[in-house]
């Protein structure tokens, strides 16, 4: 896939490289401060700064405080609607998840390439989305078996299943349950990766066609640039929607574990 559009490789943006040389080893793995780590830290710092607005804790909120409170209220409402009154117990995790994904998605979209920076989208990596999905899935398992014990397996037999169908339905439901962490992690990874590849490919078209001459630039580069503007807007939407989907599905899965249908 690389090198077709001249020197511009649309996959290069996903490469992980150490920012500083060095690092240390744990169990055969080199732990270095990579560009991925840098953007995770940026996500953390940006989110922390954003949350400071909510810490004013005034009875009559200002704009910033209201913005933070609308995020917390959004997650609160989602959890209460999907899980019930005790859903608020899971707000710390689901809120952290939603905000981390949202901020990482949006930070990765920032056009800092204009000033020579290299934006990196943390959530376009399967290792990150996979771990987050596994954590969500682990919470579902812990809550499910912790609350219901072996009765949790009744989740795989929907009400009103005819007796002869129970073994078959059980297997199907179990399979769909086990697929959840994969679909959860892959969805975010694929959505972010695809969007960023598309933007880079189109950007390559703009640069290469313009280098080939003004005519090519106007015929190929300009439509590509127009398309990029539209896709960038779409990508902002995708960034928000994917964070929402991840948090929503996590809360739905937790609902299964808490309420068993």
């Amino acid at each position, binding site marked *: 896939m690389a090198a077709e559009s001249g020197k511009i490789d649309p996959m290069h943006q996903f490469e992980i490289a150490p920012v500083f040389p060095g690092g240390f080893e744990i169990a055969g793995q080199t732990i270095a401060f990579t560009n*991925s780590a840098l953007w995770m830290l940026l996500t953390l710092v940006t989110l922390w700064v954003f949350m400071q607005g*909510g*810490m004013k*804790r005034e009875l009559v*909120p200002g704009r910033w405080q209201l913005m933070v409170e609308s995020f917390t*209220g959004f997650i609160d409402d989602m959890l209460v609607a999907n899980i019930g009154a005790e859903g608020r117990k899971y*707000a710390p995790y689901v809120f952290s998840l939603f905000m981390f994904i949202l901020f990482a998605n949006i930070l990765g979209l920032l056009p800092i390439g204009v000033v020579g920076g290299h934006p990196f989208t943390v959530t376009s990596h*399967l290792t990150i989305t996979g*771990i987050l999905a596994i954590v969500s899935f682990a919470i579902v398992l812990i809550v499910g078996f912790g609350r219901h014990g072996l009765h949790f397996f009744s989740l795989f037999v929907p009400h009103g299943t005819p007796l002869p169908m129970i073994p078959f339905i059980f297997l199907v439901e179990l399979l769909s349950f086990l697929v959840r962490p994969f679909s959860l992690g892959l969805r975010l990874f694929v959505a972010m990766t695809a969007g960023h590849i598309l933007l880079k490919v189109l950007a390559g078209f703009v640069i290469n066609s313009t280098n080939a001459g003004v005519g090519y630039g106007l015929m190929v580069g300009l439509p590509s640039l127009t398309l990029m503007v539209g896709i960038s807007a779409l990508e902002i939407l995708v960034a928000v929607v994917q964070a929402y989907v991840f948090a929503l599905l996590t809360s739905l899965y937790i609902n299964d574990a808490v309420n068993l249908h």
Partner: protein
Amino acid sequence: MPQIDQIMSTYGSQFFWLVITFGLIYFVIGRSMLPKIQGTVDLRKGKIAGDIAAAKAAHARADEIEEDYRQAQARARDAAMAITAEAKAKGAREAEARVRDADVGIAAHLAEAEAAIAAQQASALTEIEAVAVEAAQDIVARLTPAKVTKPQVNRAVKGALADA
């Protein structure tokens, strides 16, 4: 795809940094800051609900007070009317009694006066009789030589007066 190509060489580093950053987000933001923000929101919701409830209670209390006031006014009016009616009745009764007393007094006076008149009439009649007897005795003495005694004249005058 570097995400897949590099997975074996970078998963340790990715995991390490994700645990640090997401762990910090979870504990510092999710567990420590979020409940405070939720607390502020809940506090505000509670305050608004409390204020509305207080306003409703005050409204109900105002209605109650107005109702009490109306009832008190109605009671006062009824009491005033009762007092007026009683005073009127009492006045009428007193006036009646006084008129009755006055009537009795007047009747007594009348009877007294009538008795006095009757007595005076009687005394006047006896006086006239005495005068008439004297006059008749005188007249008889002057006109006739006959001598009449007082009882004779008396009898004659009484007879004449009774005839008149």
